């Protein structure tokens, strides 16, 4: 089986070098990306009738391409239902991809099974949104954090207890919290417990799925600072999935914007926020509230009409055409090509100016 993409399709040409300039300079820019996905697709079948015949599909993720260099943080932003979390889960092999390929360090992991998959799981971890629901309330913090170590036979007994204590310390919790239960902790502390568990097997790559969305404003900054500290200390690579554009601007090197199962724009942070090309990105940024009342009172906002269409029946042509303030006849007829408008800055829009 091929372990490298066969040729460079035009859609996949995101210009890794252009984007790589904004990575923190760790890792070789020309090296194989840590993660690369091409045409990643996840459809959930819609079954009807007593024969459970498939009558359609929810196209949660519908042909997504990107790569992440080692040491880099890629932000994946979009509104609820755009497929960003599903994409994260499929990459971690928590769900089977309907189509497309996933490469990890150049190795095709799309169909990996059994032992190789288990050992891959040690290198890729996930931090979930809701620390309330992702921690088993009947397990002590020590057994939650230590479970992956036991499960993979990394440590047991005294060594396990020591390892758990060290992990709790690394996320800013006291080692003696190991004997307590999740309900004794606040949201921010529970998120730290979830991070300690994710770090247990010394992963290289962590998918953070809305890690701060459930936290109070004053706690969000604490958790984001911790994520950044850990990234530096442990040389981690993140896929940071979020709807919070301001926080993504803070933490990410490059950002991909998703709408209805597709990436519509991908660029280094500076370009995406400073010079967004896709009308959807422009509307998203325009809708994000700022904190200066003088500016907010006078600001002209781009208001989108209506709601996001159902991913079971995405509109023909460009998926954004039903809400796009710049849409023209062409947009509902022909899907826009994915093209690079500047080094590392790509967009899928017929009318995005070069």
């Amino acid at each position, binding site marked *: 089986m091929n372990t490298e993409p066969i040729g460079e399709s035009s859609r996949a040409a995101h210009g890794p070098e252009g984007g790589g300039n904004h990575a923190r300079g760790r890792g070789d820019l020309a090296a194989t990306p840590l993660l690369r996905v091409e045409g990643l697709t996840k459809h959930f079948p819609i079954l009807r009738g007593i024969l459970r015949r498939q009558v359609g599909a929810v196209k949660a993720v519908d042909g997504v391409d990107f790569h992440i260099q080692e040491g880099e943080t890629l932000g994946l932003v979009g509104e609820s239902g755009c497929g960003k979390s599903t994409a994260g889960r499929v990459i971690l092999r928590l769900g089977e991809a309907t189509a497309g390929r996933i490469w990890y360090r150049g190795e095709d992991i799309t169909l990996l099974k059994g032992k190789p998959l288990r050992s891959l799981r040690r290198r890729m971890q996930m931090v979930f949104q809701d620390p309330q629901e992702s921690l088993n309330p009947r397990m002590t913090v020590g057994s939650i954090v230590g479970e992956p170590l036991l499960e993979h036979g990394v440590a047991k007994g005294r060594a396990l207890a020591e390892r758990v204590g060290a992990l709790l310390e690394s996320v800013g919790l006291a080692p003696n919290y190991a004997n307590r239960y999740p309900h004794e902790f606040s949201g921010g502390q529970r998120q730290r417990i979830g991070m300690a568990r994710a770090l247990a097997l010394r992963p290289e790559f962590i998918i953070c799925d809305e890690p701060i969305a459930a936290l109070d404003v004053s706690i969000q900054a604490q958790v984001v600072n911790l994520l950044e500290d850990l990234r530096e200390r442990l040389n981690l690579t993140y896929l940071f999935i979020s709807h919070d554009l301001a926080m993504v601007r*803070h933490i990410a090197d490059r950002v991909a914007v998703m709408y209805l199962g597709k990436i519509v724009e991908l660029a280094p942070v500076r370009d995406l926020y400073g010079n967004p090309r896709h009308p959807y990105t422009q509307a998203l940024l325009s809708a994000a509230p700022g904190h200066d009342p003088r500016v*907010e009172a006078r600001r002209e906002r781009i208001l989108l009409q209506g709601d996001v269409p159902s991913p079971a029946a995405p509109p023909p042509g460009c998926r954004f055409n039903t809400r796009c303030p710049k849409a023209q006849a062409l947009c509902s007829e022909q899907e826009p090509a994915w093209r690079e408008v500047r080094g590392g800055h790509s967009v899928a829009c017929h009318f995005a100016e070069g």
Partner: protein
Amino acid sequence: MAARGAPAVDGRCVLDVEDVRTRFHTADGVVHAVNGVGFRLHEGELLGVVGESGSGKSVTMLSMLGLLPTPPAEVVSGRARFDGVDIMRLGRDALRQVRGAGVGFVFQDPMTSLNPVLTVGYQIAEPLRAHLGFSKAEAWRRAAELLDLVGIPSPASRLREYPHQFSGGMRQRAMIALALACEPKVLVADEPTTALDVTVQAQILDLVRKLRRELGMAIVWITHDLGVVAGLADRVMVMYGGLVVERADVEALYLRPRHPYTRALLGTLPSVTGSGNGQEARKRLPSISGQPPSLTTAPAACPFAPRCGHAFARCWRENPPLLKVAGGHEAACWFDVEAGAPRRQRENGPA
């Protein structure tokens, strides 16, 4: 200051709330959720109430409207003068009249506040018949007008649909239509856009600005999102630990916050704008260390003191009342952050 697209605030007070105190009796003991909160709402004004979860912002409003289950809740004290009567002293039926026709409210999650087995039209028409004595046909006609007002296309046919057939944004619009049905003088909106996506939130905020211009009602807007209120409110009050810690006109609050908590909160927020080179966004976010207070006792000291960089002996001894720090600007803090020194304040001088 200029009201945000609303009729000029003429200063007539439509809602005057004083000294609301509410406790919850839980299995783990008493929680002092609200510890003496008051505010005044003027005609046509939008008052933003900002605070994190557990700061008491929703419980204050629910206490005022008699919407808390008792027990576990116990409203210990409070007065709320609306239309010349203290609505916190009213009996059930009289209070229901006020809630229907005088004070409307919109909650965070429209799915839990709309009845799933009744059509949207029935739910909007029913209060019109109950409170305003409309006939069925009149009520449905008015309901269609209301849906149209909040920007729901083909309102007459949507009236016959059930809440689950509406999208999140549409449901929140329907909730607003329902709250507006009897043309309340005051609208209490509790995190009405928190469950919505940012582009849909922008639509709802735009709708609220338009409705204020057209209907001129007074609004209390509860949120944890400082950004939403910056573009919407005339005045803002910040809550922490069941207390009001700062209150000011919107510009004064954002541009010259006087309470260390407000300052810290504004400091932790990253932004989508700024001098686009991305470098200033790279810096470590300022954060507030520690956790919000647990509220197991009534506050005897400043509730923010354990997390405050300016706390000194007095803060641990005495809970500061709201002190006047500038015209129309109050902060509950013994420290003058602008002077960088403890405030010289008479011992018993609430503003």
